[in-house]
């Protein structure tokens, strides 16, 4: 049993009659790169804010680092980059970084040294004494990211970290996240862009309309939802066509003659299809259980019914 860094136990958050998050549970193991996925307005930010104790759930609870402490008491162990991020425009970059580290309990001297190091690392060394207002948007985003990681948190919570970043900064951010993950930092990030999540995450939780659709290790989710897709290449034969038209085994076949993409019928197993092919004497050159992309799983599970229906829900999210 791995050690759980964030454990969310059936939390519910209501705004008036509208439930932004309903009975949501998830667990993030130490060292994981965990993706919280969902369409816009699904409740990702609300969930993250509850993890951070910025708002409190109406029901259920959040346990961090296996303990009882509140997100604010443990804030020195957490780095949080909100979706809506800002800086004090009139402050010098270095003073701002020191202040944000100090309210996490880091000493002034340590904060100053760390900030200079990070600024140099992200190419902002010459900007330390400039006002935040004088920085370009991309530079400001880097400063915000430095503020998130300066106190060397065990847990990084990044809400839509890549939104609004240009390709260069996206790359820098991604490399830094991967690097921190290698050093053992647990990372939670939310996104609605599945391609990023697929490349970065080892576990995900997909939510739609405030409720969980699926969660777990990415490979497992793919296996579960990928079991029904088969690719078969074989010599063209009547026997092959016979097996493919057996509706007890196959619900839908995209048959090219000697190449077919299949979807298993309910209850059928890939193993049974292979067995039938062999028994009928079909010469099989390729038999593959195809992995669906995360994008496909997401659309299947959180698809049309998951889209926010009323403008109110969009506004609340």
């Amino acid at each position, binding site marked *: 049993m791995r050690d759980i860094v964030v454990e969310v136990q059936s939390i519910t958050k209501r705004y008036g009659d509208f439930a932004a998050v309903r009975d949501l549970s998830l667990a993030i193991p130490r060292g994981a790169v965990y993706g919280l996925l969902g369409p816009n307005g699904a409740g990702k930010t609300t969930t993250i804010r509850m993890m951070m104790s*910025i708002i409190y759930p109406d029901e259920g609870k959040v346990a961090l680092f296996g303990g009882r402490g509140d997100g604010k008491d443990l804030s020195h162990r957490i780095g949080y980059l909100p979706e809506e991020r800002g800086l004090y425009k009139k402050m010098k970059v270095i003073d701002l970084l020191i202040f944000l580290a100090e309210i*996490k309990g880091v000493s002034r001297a340590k904060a100053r040294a760390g900030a200079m190091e990070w600024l140099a690392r992200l190419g902002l060394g010459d900007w330390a004494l400039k006002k935040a207002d004088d920085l370009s948007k991309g530079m400001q985003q880097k400063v915000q990211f430095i503020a998130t990681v300066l106190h060397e948190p065990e847990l990084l919570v990044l809400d839509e970290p890549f939104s609004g970043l240009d390709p260069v900064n996206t790359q820098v951010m991604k490399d830094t996240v991967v690097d921190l993950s290698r050093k053992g930092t647990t990372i939670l990030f939310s996104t609605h862009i599945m391609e990023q999540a697929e490349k970065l995450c080892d576990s995900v939780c997909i939510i739609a309309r405030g409720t969980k659709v699926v969660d777990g290790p990415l490979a497992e989710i793919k296996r579960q939802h990928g079991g029904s897709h088969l690719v078969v290449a074989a010599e063209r034969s009547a026997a092959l066509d016979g097996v493919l038209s057996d509706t007890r085994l196959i619900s839908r076949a995209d048959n090219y003659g000697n190449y077919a993409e299949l979807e298993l019928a309910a209850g059928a197993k890939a193993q049974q299809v292979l067995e039938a092919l062999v028994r009928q004497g079909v010469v099989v050159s390729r038999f593959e259980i195809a992995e669906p992309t995360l994008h496909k799983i997401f659309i299947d599970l959180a698809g049309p019914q998951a889209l926010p229906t009323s403008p109110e829900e969009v506004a609340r999210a």
Partner: protein
Amino acid sequence: MHKLMVVIRREFIERVRTKWFLIGTILGPVFMGLVIVLPIVMAERGGGERNVVVLDATSDDFGTRLTAAMQQIPKLSVERRAVALASLEDQAVALAQEIGTTPLDGMLLITDNTVEDGKAEYRGSNVSSLTDMRTMQATLRSSVFAERLQREGVELSVVSRAQIPVDLATVQIRDGKVTGGSAESSFFLAYFIWFLLYLAILLYGVQVLGAVVEEKSTRIVEVLVSSLKPFQLLAGKVAGVGAVGLLQLGIWLGTGKLLLDRRADVARWLGQGPEAAAAVGQMSFPEVPLGTILLFLTYFLLGYFLYAAMFAAVAAMVNTEAEARQAQTPVVMLLVIPTVLMIGILNNPDGSMALTLSLVPFTSPIAMPVRWAASPVPLTEVAGSLGILFGTVVVITWIAGRIYRVGILAYGKKPGLKELVRWVKG
């Protein structure tokens, strides 16, 4: 506690570093210097000769005697011109052309009615000069008075003895002790206290408003509240801005006192003559007892906390500075009430309006110190006023904290009253 100190320090240092703090800190003493220097300059300008013509349409020699009396007034040169009653108005209109183009400053129109009914008229360019008008009126009054007595057959020596002026010296007594301040100087002090309190509470209250709106509109607040409790953030902000306020007030009061104590030197330094310097040195400035200063600072702090909390709650409800400027109006109005009623308090510091305003918590931070400076206030009333104010500060801060906690993370439409109640109940 450490986090709170970090917030206070940031708020304090970032504010003290701005050029507005520097400008404000310098402008305060400059303004106070002007209060001290202006009378010197005025005294100098007032030193110029006034030229007045008495247009005498009387049928006896009252005009001659009045002119002689007026010539006794320092720095006033008077010339009498006898005119016929019928042409008085034409003469006056013709003479009016000379005012402004020649050294002539004005004319006094007298007729036989002046002694009979006490009617006279002065036309001139210096009618707004209170000193000029006061001395001229006093001279006119005593001349008319003497004339009437003489017409009734009173002996001249009796008349002149009857005219020996009475000088009422006013001395304020507080707690059974003579303070050395005159009625005039305590009025001056009350007025100054009112001005400073109003300015300081408004100025620093609005700074809290601006700070909250800034954090909300730049959205840095979400990063902050992931590390800080909203109340820590609010308390740190209010305390930090308040510390800046105390520092600035301290500098103002300190330099003000220094300027007052050395006002003769200031006058000399400004190149004014020794007489002007001496005159300024003798000007009646109030002595400020320690009790008044303590009371002033206590009410400033409590009043500032009260209004800062309300300003913070208002700021938490809105999204932008433009919205904040509109939303702050009701709070500012609360502060303006004692200002509008100030003259009422000063005229009757023991009256029921002054009593009410100095007990109601939203007006007492200004009204009570002003009352205190103007006249002695029973200590029970001060204690009651402070108690009510303190209790209100606690309640308002609690409510404001609840609104702030929800408001800083709520974007979009401004909440209605119903929603606000829900925030507070939270």
